């Protein structure tokens, strides 16, 4: 029973990921797309935490921790990219 509910939660979160794809396609600015990436990062962390419980694999929580830490690098690398206003 619990396993089914956890599995359904994973499906729901995956559907959220696919919905976020629309934002990446639609844009319109680079910042919108980057925010979608950050949303994906958070959703992936949630997915990994639920999967750790669902599959009974505690080490997946370490993977989730890694995603939290490393999301900042991509964000910082993006902060320096020229904004759309600077584009010709």
């Amino acid at each position, binding site marked *: 029973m619990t*396993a*089914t509910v956890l*599995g*359904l939660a*994973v*499906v729901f979160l*995956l*559907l959220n*990921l*696919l919905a976020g*794809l629309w934002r*990446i*396609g639609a*844009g319109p600015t*680079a910042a919108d*797309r*980057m925010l*979608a*990436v950050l949303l*994906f*990062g958070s959703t*992936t962390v949630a*997915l*990994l935490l639920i*999967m750790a419980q669902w*599959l009974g*694999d505690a*080490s*997946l929580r*370490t*993977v989730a*921790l*890694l*995603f939290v*830490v*490393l*999301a*900042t*690098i*991509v964000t*910082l*690398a*993006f*902060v*320096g*990219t*020229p904004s759309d206003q*600077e*584009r*010709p």
Partner: protein
Amino acid sequence: MTVGIVVDMMLGLALVALSLRVVTGTALFRDIVLFILFGLLVALSWARLGAPDLALAEAAIGAGLTGALMLMAYRSIGTDTEERPVRRRPAVALVVAVLTGSLVAVIGLAALGIERVPDAAGDAVLEALPGTGLRNAVTGVLLVFRGLDTMLEMAVLLVALLGAWTVLGDARPGRVHRVDRRTPLVGSLLTVVAPITLLVAVHLLLAGTDAPGGAFQAGAVLTGCGVLMVLTGTLRPTAVAGFATRLLVVAGLAAFVLVGAGAGFAGHAPMTLTGTWAVYLIETAMMLSIALTMTLLFARARGLRGEGS
């Protein structure tokens, strides 16, 4: 487990669709973003397949470092490439597609026909693992059973750095476009995140003997810390490699060689690790070498110096 099948189908379909979009897309920034997303889904797939070691590596390298590297490259390419029209050659594409498709089909069909060998290496590893004092089979394979391969991997990494240094020539170190630390949040983010990456790296290194983790994942996370500091200008690239830099870059390979040769002189077979201390020593050296090498490659530099020094 019908829910499990649904999850697997979604992951599989999303991976194929995303990879198609990434390869065929024409908008540079959007495709970089899609590639980062692709990395996330690959990590999730490894998690679903029960391979947390690979999920860790994919999370660290695929989602963190490659994404940052691509964004940096996008930045240095300039701004006039947002919607670049791509000239397509359908005939060439068709030939390549058919050839790769048949290659995948042949390998796949061959793989389907393979029968499980009774005395495969995997079973032998799991049987011999308790004797090594390690509880993580992946670390056992990397360091004890296939130590020579891992040592050569460190050599490859070193050669890659030397190659990059050669290409760099006498050029001044790459001007890394820095993020202004006075920007709201960036400075405070750095003071919080950099120590946490250090902690996570050491945790992964120490956990690697018993649980998923190890020198490669820890090194990748530590690289993340280095990249953060290069991006914010806390570490500045220099044109000269100091003694400490050179020492750290070869540390992983050197530790492997010295411990392996030492075992040979002490009467064991060469390259045997005589205890968990050797595993910890080599893994620590490897982590430092991996992290410094990749940070130097990222910064296009021969050395790094602290801000103001």
